[in-house]
């Protein structure tokens, strides 16, 4: 009798655990690794908005987690591996420096899918994705050339990787299309997110005569430092207008949501495959914040340029393009190729007065 009851209890318990297990296994776990805090109101904020779009649209089937402030390097490998070990089947690593750690962890967990932002190495279970931010930089360059009185742009750059160099080049090409004598001063701060350092860099650039500040770092500090002196600046990765009501001209908006939702659905349907996605304004991955604090004719010009880029009628890297040494690298009328030129860009265009760090 007792043996029967015990067996029955055991059977019931295992049936319940199995049922419970099946119910929780229904929800796909998607993980995110962030380089900074979602509160940076810049790069990481934009990725987090993408994550929230997944929550909103697929909340019944998907559960998202994020780890913020993960430094690039050995710590990253641990953080990514932790997500993979705890049942996450799709992991987004949202910074260039996570490239090697992502690949290493991907080898250990072949059934987990990885999406690495702004990288260039893929694997069977590692896809890469990026946005053509340079399209926005071109528009910004044009605006800067129209608005700047001193003809000097202050550029706060982070690390000398192709993405950042592309941004500087696109910005300058846009500025030079309006004013061929435009100058740019570049300060390399070697960080993605360090508000005091970014503020220092902005102040120094302004001291040296720049009257437009733009950045490839993630916080609002530079914009605010510029606003304190009444200097116009561009926001980065998200609309930062609330931090500089009177001086933000526009910002490049990163719109990751639709791509994130699509990839999550791919995994849910079992249709995910590796590859590289590089979308710009056309597919809506890059947008521009409202054009503020500028005369309406400049705003209209900017809108027109953005529209022509969006429809594909114009490509920012259309020749003739000369490098710093004066050599022609893109012929007149031709467009720079995605690979290898754009993806591995490691030279400045003519007119940039800076030496590219190794």
């Amino acid at each position, binding site marked *: 009798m007792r043996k029967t009851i015990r067996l029955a209890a055991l059977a019931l318990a295992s049936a319940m655990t199995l049922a419970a297990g099946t119910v929780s296994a229904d929800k796909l776990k998607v993980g995110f690794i962030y380089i900074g*805090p*979602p*509160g*940076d*109101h810049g790069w990481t*904020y934009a990725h987090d908005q993408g994550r929230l779009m997944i929550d909103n649209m697929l909340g019944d089937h998907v559960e998202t987690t994020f780890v913020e*402030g993960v430094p690039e390097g050995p710590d990253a490998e641990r953080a990514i591996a932790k997500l993979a070990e705890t049942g996450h089947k799709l992991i987004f690593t949202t910074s260039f420096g996570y490239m090697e750690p992502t690949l290493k962890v991907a080898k250990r967990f072949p059934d987990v899918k990885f999406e690495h932002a702004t990288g260039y190495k893929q694997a069977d279970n590692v896809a890469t994705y990026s946005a053509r931010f340079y399209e926005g930089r071109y528009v910004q360059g044009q605006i800067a050339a129209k608005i700047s009185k001193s003809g000097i742009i*202050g550029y706060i750059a982070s690390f000398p990787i192709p993405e950042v160099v592309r941004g500087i080049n696109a910005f300058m090409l846009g500025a030079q299309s309006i004013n061929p004598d435009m100058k740019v*001063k*570049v*300060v*390399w701060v*070697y960080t993605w*997110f*360090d*508000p*005091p*350092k*970014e*503020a*220092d*860099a902005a*102040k*120094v*650039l*302004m*001291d*040296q*005569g*720049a009257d437009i500040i733009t950045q490839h770092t993630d*916080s*609002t*500090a530079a914009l*605010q*430092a510029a606003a*304190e002196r009444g200097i116009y600046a561009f926001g980065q990765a998200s609309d930062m207008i*609330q*931090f500089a009501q009177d001086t933000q001209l526009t910002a490049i908006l990163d719109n990751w949501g639709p791509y994130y939702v699509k990839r999550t659905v791919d995994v849910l349907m079992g249709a995910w495959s590796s590859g590289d996605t590089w979308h710009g304004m056309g597919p809506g991955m890059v947008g521009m914040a409202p054009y503020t604090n500028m005369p309406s004719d400049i705003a209209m010009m900017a809108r027109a340029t953005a529209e022509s880029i969006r429809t594909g009628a114009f490509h920012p890297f259309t020749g003739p393009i000369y490098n710093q040494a004066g050599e022609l690298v893109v012929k007149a009328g031709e467009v720079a190729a995605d690979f290898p030129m754009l993806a591995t860009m490691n030279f400045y265009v003519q007119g940039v*007065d*800076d*030496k590219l*760090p*190794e």
Partner: protein
Amino acid sequence: MTELIIASIMTMMTAATPLVFAATGELVCEKSGVLNLGVEGMMLIGAVFGFAATAITGNAVLGLAAGGACGLAAALIFAVLTLTLLSNQVATGLALTIFGTGLSALVGLDYVGDTIDQIRRVHIPVLGDLPVVGRLLFGHDPLVYLGIAMLALTGWFLARTRWGMILRAVGDSDISAHAIGYPVIAIRYGAVAFGGAMAGLGGAYLSLVYTPLWAENMTAGRGWIALALVVFANWRPGRVLLGAVLFGGITILQLNAQAAGLGIPAAFMSMLPYIATIVVLVFISRDAIRIRLNAPACLGRPFRADR
């Protein structure tokens, strides 16, 4: 060119101010014989609580006061552990740094991305409009002046007042001071508390004036630089100011050199402030006698009244 020099000096002074505050506090603390390595932690605590207070009340002065008060509180924890419970000062100081870093990150989670109204520069009507001197002497924000004033006050206190002499006596020979009848532990408590308040103010300056933002670990090693400064300055207030301006200057200088396109590798320029600290420290450490003259003889040694 003059415009650039003036502007650079202005920026240099703001870069030096957190160091001035933190180093002034640490100077008094070390002069009394207590080695508080927790400056970085206290600065971060001051930064986050100062920012939080300003975000909540909307009053930046209140925020500064809150930053100083919380730095003081953190220093008191250190004081209880090292002065009453006689724990090792070096280890406790390091623990305070780690604690401060972690606590500030935790408290700061709610405030990342918030912004507040910066404390602006005050414009003095006639004096501020003078051609070159106007901006250089009268154009800074109020806290730059406060920092220099605190440093001057500290120098005067240590050198010219009776209690300053007693504090130095406690730092040089705690046993003798105790024998004469001075309350060694109480004096050290006061010195440590002052050190904490100054470090907290320095940190609050970063998050309220320097950039009206909070970011994890925003002091980025300034606390350690301040510590090194006190030694570099041979425990003399005038030199502390010189050192702070020098290090603030080098930081700004390297950014200026980059922006000016001087062609020196940016990675090397980033190292410069830290290399300068090491080089100067090595240089001044050569004169052992001068150091012995100025260094508090009982630095780092716990005091037990029954010895």
